[in-house]
């Protein structure tokens, strides 16, 4: 999985920096907590831009390359921001066999972006994901925390419109 550090302007607030600082403070004695700190940082900022990785590396007293190495190793960490509505299309075996690739193609077509990208209005982003464990409902997509199952490509447009109209 290729990952690129986001080129978008970093817009962190002081409050976010304080939140992250507190987490680092509680964990810095135990180096094995590095991944936990990064997971928390991603919850705070939504992604792990360069600036945040520097904060973590300095706070935990580990080389920046180690933080970067972990952030690119695990698929959960994202280096570019997510849209307001993040669409995950499950490409696990059960979903794939039942046609989730066609569903993904349709989502990309409707939004005009590729997986891993965010629309320019920052409303939607698409990601491919591995099994979310709802194989009985295959093929499934997840928008934010909501799961849509038993989908056909024809259902995609209506579902996306629902979110577009919400905003």
């Amino acid at each position, binding site marked *: 999985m290729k990952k690129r550090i986001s080129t978008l302007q970093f817009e962190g607030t002081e409050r976010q920096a304080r939140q992250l600082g507190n987490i680092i403070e509680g964990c810095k004695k135990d180096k094995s*907590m590095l991944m936990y700190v990064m*997971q928390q940082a991603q919850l705070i900022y939504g992604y792990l831009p360069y600036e945040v990785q520097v904060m973590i590396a300095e706070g935990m007293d580990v080389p920046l390359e180690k933080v970067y190495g972990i952030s690119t190793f695990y698929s*959960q960490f994202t280096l570019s921001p997510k849209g307001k509505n993040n669409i995950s299309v499950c490409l696990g*075996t059960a979903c794939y066999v039942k046609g989730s690739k066609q569903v993904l193609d349709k989502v990309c077509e409707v939004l005009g972006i590729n997986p891993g990208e965010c629309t320019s209005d920052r409303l939607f982003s698409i990601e491919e994901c591995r099994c979310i464990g709802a194989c009985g409902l295959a093929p499934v997509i997840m928008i934010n925390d909501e799961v849509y199952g038993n989908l056909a490509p024809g259902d995609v447009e209506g579902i996306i419109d629902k979110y577009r109209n919400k905003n």
Partner: protein
Amino acid sequence: MKSLDELNIIRDRAKIKMKSKKDNTELIRVVVGMATCGIAAGAKPVLDALNDEVSKLGLGNVAVKQTGCIGICQYEPIVEVIEQGKEKVTYVKVNAEKAREIASKHLKDGNVVSKYTVGGTIDSVDDGICSVDDTAFYTKQKRVALRNCGIIDPESIDEYIAVDGFAALGKCLTSLEPDEVVDIVKASGLRGRGGGGFPAGLKWGFTAANKADKKYVVCNADEGDPGAFMDRSVLEGDPYCLIEAMTICGYATGADEGYIYVRAEYPVAVARLEKAIAECNEKNLLGKNIFGSGFEFNLHIRLGAGAFVCGEETALMTSIEGNRGEPRPRPPFPSVKGLFGKPTTENNVETFANIPQIILKGAEWFSGMGTEKSKGTKVFALGGKIMNTGLVEIPMGVTLRETVEEIGGGIPNGKKFKAAQTGGPSGGCIPAEYLDIPMDYDNLLQIGAMMGSGGLIVMDEDNCMVDIAKFFLEFTVDESCGKCTPCRIGTKRLYEILEKITNGDGTLEDLDKMEEICHYIKENSLCGLGQSAPNPVLSTYKHFKDEYIAHVVEKRCPSGVCKNLLSYEIIADKCRGCTACARVCPVDAISGSPKNVHKIDKAKCIKCGACMTRCKFDAIIKK
């Protein structure tokens, strides 16, 4: 918990509480399946509606509870009504509205709403059947690891204790020596359920034999095999069982600390585990001096971050230590030098879930189930082209045919069974000719598949086996950690060959090269991920060579999946000249005037299939 007596008192009290109220009137117990698949299907509004309606109707004798996975995922949300002395009633595909109707008609007036029951809703189940226990899906099952899933409230320690929870731990700590516990696990014949099938008792014995100032127990809950979700089901449906089993393992091997490494993609499981651990600490079922025995055990949760390779035991430990999850060479094995360099016992969730029952019912009871070399039961996650998708736990040695046709209800839409993929990206496919072999570790290995973690994906005639192999390879290319060359580069080259074949550019030499690379990767990779990565290719090539040849020589995809090899044609006899196809074609590849036979220009056609879906006369076929 200070003693076994104290546990027994709590158990007896909890048992009564599950059945009746304080004044001894009998309770009607209503459970709603609230595992991830249930929640995704809309179980939360159902639970809310039931609670609301029960309090509105003033039904004081009804207790509405949440529970874990009931198993028939496809028919979620599921509500079960359990009443003393009456047959259990299972309602499927319930929504809030139906839930209210069930509350007023069944819970209040005592009339089963038969149109919403398993029999009333599912076509393949006889109308008279009310309880899921009487369906073909259940009667063949034998639940050991999943015994509490879908029965108890996973967030209530009392309910776990009521079904003999922590009795096994109590027995170990108060009346068995550590080596006796190891001997029981050895004698049971329990093998690791995560993939490899290594005997659990041997593993425990190795760690126990090593002297060290510190030892660990690790639970592998990083269920990464796409299509398998039995571990999630146990974590969400029976978290206390895992805690009990890990504590027993700690006692047997001399460890005082444990880690559960669980996927971050399982938020419900994580939340329930956290709650369960906190409660156990409070009740002194974890911590110091458990059962007054002087034994201490502490448990932590670590979240994975989405890396398939972390399901490999050494990679998992590297990840817990806070690094990129890359595997380490073995030896030294984890039982010598594992987590933080200390002797460590690692098992997966399903393996642990068997332990308490083995301790309570004895090794002979467990080894009485299954085949000669594979004892006990195995949970399979049925998925793909099968009627009843869901979790089934069956004794080792049940045939694939029974599993697919009887328990799974066969293939939908009258299609033919082609193959089943077991073991996910590390496993292989089982073609129709082996439908009757008893499924256990050794038989599956022999035919080039493997048990793996128990994902069982059924494929029908519409699935292209080359495409499936390519799909799994794409997965391993993505998930290869990059540490060793055979896996990092070999899988990539292998994937490229498969891509060439499915694009119609493959040659017979490519097939030879493909086989050669497969063997090279298998023999030279550092860890299980690489060593098993070529399995899907090798097994599909072995059993479906003709499909590979068709792609390469005839430039044809027999199942009509590989886009580049497809062509759409209009059957002249069936075409009425309605022009619907021409109008829907995005690239104007279809020509023809009204009421005359239409034609597809193959040079222009992008093979999107829109015309075929649109045609009302089945006049368009793909080849």
